[in-house]
């Protein structure tokens, strides 16, 4: 058993050893007694998947290790580190097993590793930007790649003719052209890996990246054509073959794109009908996209183009159709798969390079190739840019061209293609392999390392993440319409004309066909942006609420200046998110749809912010993690909030107004408002004039967004009203108010339950159930107006006194008139705070309910005795101490201000 376990342990490093070991194992396994075995070791049955899983695990762990040091990752791109790691691992395997065991297999690469990366980049491609620059992208991808392939191939051949390449490299012009075609293509994986850490401006990125994706068709065609020519032998190639080669370029590229679009259509159509099986939505996305890839591959079309087009085409409709949870799932899965594949690719690249049996070195060829690919890339870019700039609205300047030429990285695609060559047909294959490895390593490591300093040094315009504003969105729409109109007037059908045409077609037919009716109805970009902004505000609002809770200084946003609130308190998280076109295709967090963000933030808030019920609290406490005073702090906080809540309810009693936070007022909200208006009407008195004794009690109704979201499944968007606070008078309360006065509500240290039904049916001071959940929504804490701040501080200070032992001097203070309305007003707040606070204590009923704290029973009886001393109108059987009268003063003042 031990012998069998050994190779497994050594696997990640010495996998080759593991592969050899089993040959001896049967001998050692022969020993166990025949019949039933208790324990059986079956390495062979799990070997393949086990190894795959282990490789991915190793790669992921390596990633974690790299990112432990911020300094290293900020200097060195991850792809470099991974390649180097691969080299080291490959070296170890080689040393242990005496032969290279693992390498990047072209089959694995093209069928499994490449599709997720391409799908990810296609799906999250900023489509507007892509199509705005489509002309440039296509030029670089088609003309540029052809140029690179032919010039590099021809130049290498010339080099050989000049005798600079050793004669042992047996290759003719066609072989060199074949090599040129595979080495010339800019690699999407490498470009993505390097550029996403550089953050150049959007246009530049989309051009280089778009080129790397679209040039696949050209590469595939060139490679196949040259390969078949080489196999046929140059003598047998006829003119028709050249023509076929040219034709196949169109077939492969357009065919690939068509396959992608067909699958995009199918995908969008399928997701339209998944309403009842939401769970398979993400799966559908992956399956159909993968099917597109495989179909194109099967028909020898450009598979990369197919899956790019599929992702690009389906996104709009799919995102509209699937639920937002599926959206998150799709995004995360896609990112995970892509990142995983990328990691494995680079690591395997490193490992494959170690296998010296596969390659043969020729300095002339290697150095020549390196020079030529750099030189011709630069030359090609300059020539094409010059041509393009004749037509571009915003010309690409010299710096852009430098970055574009330098960013032409080669990668795993070239490597996989060169491995695929047939040695019998291409005798110089080994030399080509070595050269490709060097080129890939050079571009990924040297260029990858230096491109960041270069970009900094040249002061290339960086991409700036800015928040999309409603203005921007709206005005850009206007611009589009204006430009389309101007093109119509001028009478030449340019880009804007076709864009406009497409959008109309899309709106009229495609969207109707491919989107759910509910999604189609509410689909509008402007509204969408508005919705996202709203959520952002809501979050920053809640975020602010969090701050209010934790800080003692009460900094409350006054209501009308919501804008400034949003500006000042938006957290880092929010600031970096939500840019309309995020180019960092690998990073999940930068572009979030509003809902995902909401989900995440809500989750964290809830995780961190929810008060723990006592039982759970105890269980999770375990003495090691939560300090002793955590419980105390929680109690304190809850108490503070209760105080605040009471202040609020007092405030609403005072003004009888409804607080409407956030601008969105949908029908629902206005209905609510009507209700309030009615309530006011029944009161029949103008709210301002009321002395607070006479005011009907009003209960604060907190409506949470979630409640509304839950009861409407279809029209999610329409529910996105802000948090609305409605003060509403209920009939019960009105009755109560007739004889007991509003004081009951506000100064009682009870909780006012958040849900309206609770509040209406069982008023807390009537029923004995004190254990109503101590529930405070963070929003409520926010509406304590600033002018109540002093009052609030009062309650805080009185609360702090809880910690100190109860004092028995209370009686002296209770002689204060309970309703010191006019008379007590002049009293200064400073005075109040200097009052002996211990007089405040919890009411007996509260103690009865089992929530008593440190009061002694004597204290309670004292309080009860004090009851009669309280004011004439104060019927409360609760016991507001002197603190109460302080509050009264404060409230009063606040109200008059």
């Amino acid at each position, binding site marked *: 058993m031990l012998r069998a376990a050994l190779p497994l342990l050594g696997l990640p490093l010495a996998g080759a050893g593991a592969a050899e070991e089993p040959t001896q194992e049967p001998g050692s396994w022969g020993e166990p007694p025949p019949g039933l075995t208790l324990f059986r070791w079956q390495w062979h049955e799990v070997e393949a998947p086990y190894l795959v899983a282990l490789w991915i695990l190793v790669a992921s762990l390596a990633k974690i290790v790299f990112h432990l040091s911020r300094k290293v990752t900020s200097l060195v791109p991850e792809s470099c580190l991974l390649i180097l790691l691969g080299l080291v691992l490959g070296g170890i395997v080689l040393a242990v097993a005496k032969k290279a065991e693992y390498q990047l297999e072209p089959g694995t690469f093209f069928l499994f590793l490449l599709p997720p990366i391409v799908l990810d980049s296609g799906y999250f491609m900023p489509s507007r930007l892509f199509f*705005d620059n489509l002309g440039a992208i296509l030029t670089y991808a088609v003309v540029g790649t052809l140029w690179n392939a032919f010039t590099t191939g021809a130049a290498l051949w010339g080099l050989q003719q000049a005798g600079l390449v050793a004669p042992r490299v047996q290759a003719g012009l066609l072989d060199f052209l074949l090599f040129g075609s595979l080495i010339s293509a800019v690699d999407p994986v490498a470009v993505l890996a390097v550029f996403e850490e550089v953050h150049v401006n959007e246009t530049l990125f989309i051009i280089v990246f778009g080129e790397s994706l679209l040039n696949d068709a050209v590469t595939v065609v060139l490679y196949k054509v040259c390969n078949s020519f080489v196999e046929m032998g140059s003598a047998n190639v006829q003119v028709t073959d050249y023509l076929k080669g040219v034709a196949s370029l169109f077939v492969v590229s357009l065919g690939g794109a068509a396959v992608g679009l067909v699958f995009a259509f199918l995908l969008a159509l399928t997701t339209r009908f998944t309403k009842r099986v939401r769970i398979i939505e993400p799966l559908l996305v992956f399956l159909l996209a993968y099917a597109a890839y495989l179909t194109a591959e099967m028909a020898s079309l450009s598979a990369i183009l197919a899956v790019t087009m599929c992702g690009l085409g389906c996104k709009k409709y799919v995102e509209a159709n699937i639920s937002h949870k599926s959206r998150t799932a799709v995004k995360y899965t896609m990112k995970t798969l892509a990142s995983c594949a990328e990691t494995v690719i680079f690591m395997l690249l490193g490992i494959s390079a170690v296998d010296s049996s596969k390659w043969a070195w020729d300095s002339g060829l290697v150095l020549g190739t390196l020079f030529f690919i750099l030189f011709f890339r630069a030359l090609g870019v300059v020539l094409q840019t010059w041509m393009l700039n004749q*037509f571009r*609205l*915003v010309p690409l300047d010299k710096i852009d061209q430098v970055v574009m030429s330098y960013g032409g990285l080669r990668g795993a695609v070239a490597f996989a293609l060169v491995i695929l060559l047939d040695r019998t047909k291409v005798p110089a294959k080994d030399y080509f392999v070595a050269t490709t490895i060097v080129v890939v390593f050079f571009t990924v490591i040297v260029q990858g390392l230096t491109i960041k300093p270069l970009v900094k040094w040249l002061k290339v315009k960086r991409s*700036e993440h*800015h928040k999309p*504003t*409603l*203005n*921007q969105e*709206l*005005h*850009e*729409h*206007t*611009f*589009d*319409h*204006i*430009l*389309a*109109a*101007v*093109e*119509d*007037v*001028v*009478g*030449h059908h*340019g*880009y*804007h*004309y076709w864009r*406009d045409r497409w959008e*109309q077609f899309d709106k009229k037919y495609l969207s109707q066909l491919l989107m759910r009716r509910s999604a189609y*109805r*509410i*689909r*509008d970009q*402007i*509204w969408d942006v*508005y919705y996202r*902004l*709203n959520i952002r505000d809501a979050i920053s609002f809640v975020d602010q609420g969090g701050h209010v809770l934790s800080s003692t200084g009460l900094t409350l946003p006054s209501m009308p200046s*919501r*804008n400034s609130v949003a500006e000042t308190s938006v957290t880092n998280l929010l600031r970096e998110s939500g840019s309309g076109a995020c180019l960092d295709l690998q990073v999940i967090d930068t572009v979030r749809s509003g809902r995902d963000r909401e989900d995440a933030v809500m989750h964290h808030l809830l995780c961190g912010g929810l008060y723990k019920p006592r039982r759970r609290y105890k269980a999770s406490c375990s003495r090691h993690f939560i300090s002793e005073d955590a419980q105390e702090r929680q109690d304190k906080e809850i108490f503070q909030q209760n105080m605040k809540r009471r202040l609020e309810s007092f405030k609403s009693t005072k003004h009888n107004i409804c607080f409407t936070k956030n*601008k*969105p*007022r*949908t*029908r629902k909200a206005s209905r609510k408002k009507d209700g309030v208006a009615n309530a006011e009407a029944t009161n029949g008195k103008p709210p301002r004039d009321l002395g607070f004794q006479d005011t009907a009690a009003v209960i604060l109704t907190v409506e949470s967004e979630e409640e509304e979201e839950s009861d409407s499944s279809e029209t999610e968007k329409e529910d996105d009203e802000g948090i609305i606070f409605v003060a509403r008078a209920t009939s019960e309360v009105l009755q109560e108010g007739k004889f007991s006065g509003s004081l009951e509500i506000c100064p009682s240290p009870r909780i006012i339950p958040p849900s309206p039904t609770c509040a209406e049916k069982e008023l807390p001071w009537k029923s004995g159930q004190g254990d109503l959940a101590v529930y405070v929504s963070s929003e409520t804490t926010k509406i304590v107006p600033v002018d109540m701040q002093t009052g609030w501080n009062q309650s805080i200070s009185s609360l702090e006194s809880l910690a100190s032992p109860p004092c028995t001097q209370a009686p002296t203070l209770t002689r204060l008139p309970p309703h010191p309305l006019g008379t007590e007003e002049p009293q200064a707040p400073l005075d109040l705070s200097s009052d002996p606070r211990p007089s405040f204590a919890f009411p007996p009923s509260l103690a009865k309910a089992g929530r008593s704290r440190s009061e002694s029973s004597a204290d309670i009886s004292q309080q009860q005795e004090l009851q009669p001393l309280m004011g004439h109108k104060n019927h409360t059987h609760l016991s507001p101490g002197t603190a109460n009268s302080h509050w009264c003063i404060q409230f009063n003042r606040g109200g008059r201000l």
Partner: protein
Amino acid sequence: MLLRNEELEAIKKETGFSHSQIARLYKRFTTLDKEENGTLSREDFQRIPELAINPLGDRIISAFIPDGEDQVNFRGFIRILAHFRPIDAKSKDGNGSEPLNSRINKLRFAFQLYDLDKDDKISRSELLQVLHMMVGVNIPDEQLGVIADRTIQEADQDGDGAISFTEFVKVLEKVQIEQKMSIQFLD
């Protein structure tokens, strides 16, 4: 070619269009001018089929036709079009005056589409009108109102409940106007 030479030169100087571009635009102008009176009327513009389905079509037609008149001559026509010429580095010099295709003039053009009453402010109702045109019937009025409120709030700096031109420029300062408000004129 019905344009006189000096007129051509003046246009060239004013708008920055090349000779052939002006010729081309003049040809288009005469094609649109069905009455053949040397001016384009509102109806001439409305005859362009695509403009009829442009949500802002009528606004843009109005932008072509000068205030208080009901027709536009070629000079006016080409001056408006000059706003959409791409910005080139060379046009910066000139006689000191801002070229028609400068960023600020492009923005001014867009701004005037909103600002119907020409008080140099986009009021809420003006914004709402444009929103109505662009959004269509999918979104109820209430929500449009909310959007309009929000848009104004976002841009409004002096708190007058309207967007002035300075505020308009400010709020769009990150947008690549040079690209988004330019088209390629054929030679």
